[in-house]
C-alpha cells in the first residue's frame, strides 16, 4: 500500500513539474513578445508625436509646394501622400526632391522637400500626409 501511494505521488509530482514548466515557458514567451510589441508601439507613437511638417511656400502657378520637416524625426520621400481637392493625387506628383540634394530619399529634420505637381493648383485644397499619418493642410 505504501509503495503504491509513493509511486502515485511521484507520477502526479512529475506531471505537475511538466505542467509548471510548460506554463512558465509559454508565459515567458508571451511576455517577451508582448513587451517587444509594446516597445515598438510606443516607439511608433513617440515618432509620430515628434513628427511635424509645415508648408514653407506654395507656387500655385507652377505647381510647386515646399514643405519643411519641422519635427525631430527623419522622414522619407516615398510613402508620402498628396491630396488635391480631397482626391489622392500621388500620380500627379512629378518629382519629390530635397532642396540642395537631388539624390537622397531621406528627408532629415530642418530640410525642405520640394514637391512638383502637374496641373493647376489655383484655389486647390492641398493635404500632405507623411508615412506615420502626420498631415498638413493648405
Amino acid at each position: 500500500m505504501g509503495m503504491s501511494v509513493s509511486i502515485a505521488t511521484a507520477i502526479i509530482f512529475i506531471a505537475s513539474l511538466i505542467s509548471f514548466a510548460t506554463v512558465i515557458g509559454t508565459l515567458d514567451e508571451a511576455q517577451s513578445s508582448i513587451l517587444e510589441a509594446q516597445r515598438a508601439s510606443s516607439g511608433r507613437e513617440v515618432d509620430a508625436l515628434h513628427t511635424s511638417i509645415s508648408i514653407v511656400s506654395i507656387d500655385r502657378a507652377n505647381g510647386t509646394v515646399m514643405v519643411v520637416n519641422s519635427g525631430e524625426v527623419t522622414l522619407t520621400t516615398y510613402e508620402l501622400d498628396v491630396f488635391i481637392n480631397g482626391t489622392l493625387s500621388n500620380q500627379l506628383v512629378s518629382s519629390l526632391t530635397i532642396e540642395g540634394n537631388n539624390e537622397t530619399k531621406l528627408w532629415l529634420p530642418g530640410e525642405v522637400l520640394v514637391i512638383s505637381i502637374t496641373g493647376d493648383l489655383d484655389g486647390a485644397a492641398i493635404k500632405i500626409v507623411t508615412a506615420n499619418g502626420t498631415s498638413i493642410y493648405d
Partner: protein
Amino acid sequence: MASDDSITQMIFFIASIIVAVSIAGTIIGVTGLMAEEMRTKANNAVSEMGSSIVIINDPRHVPYEDGVITLYIKNIGEVTQSYGDLILFIDGQFVEFEVEKVSSGSDNWVTGGVIEITATIVLDAGDHTAKAILGNGVSDTLDFRL
C-alpha cells in the same frame, strides 16, 4: 490467504497507478490547453499593438459624387493587414464597400500602403463621421463635412 492478500494489494497497486496516471494526463492536457490559449492571447495582443490605421482623407473635401463616397485608409502600423475583414460605419450605419489598393506592389495591405474604399450611401450636406475597424478591433474615425 496470503495469496489473496497479495492479489488484493496488486489490484490496489495497479488501480492507484491508473488513477495517478489519469490525473497526471489530465493535468498535462489542461496545462497544454492553457498554454495554447495564452499563446493565442499573446499573439492577438501583439497583432493589436502592431496595428494602426488612419483615414487620411482631407476632411474639407471628402470625394462624394452620385451617392458614392471615397475614403482613403493608410496602414501606419507594423503589421501587414488584410482588408477583407475591414468594417466601415458612416454616421453609425454599417456600410458595404469596394476596396481598391492604391499603392502598387504586392496584393497585401503593407505598412505605408493606402487602400481606396468606395461605398454607396445617401448623405446630406453637413457633418458626418466615418469609422473604419480592422478585424482585431483597431479603428480610426474621421469627422468630415460635405
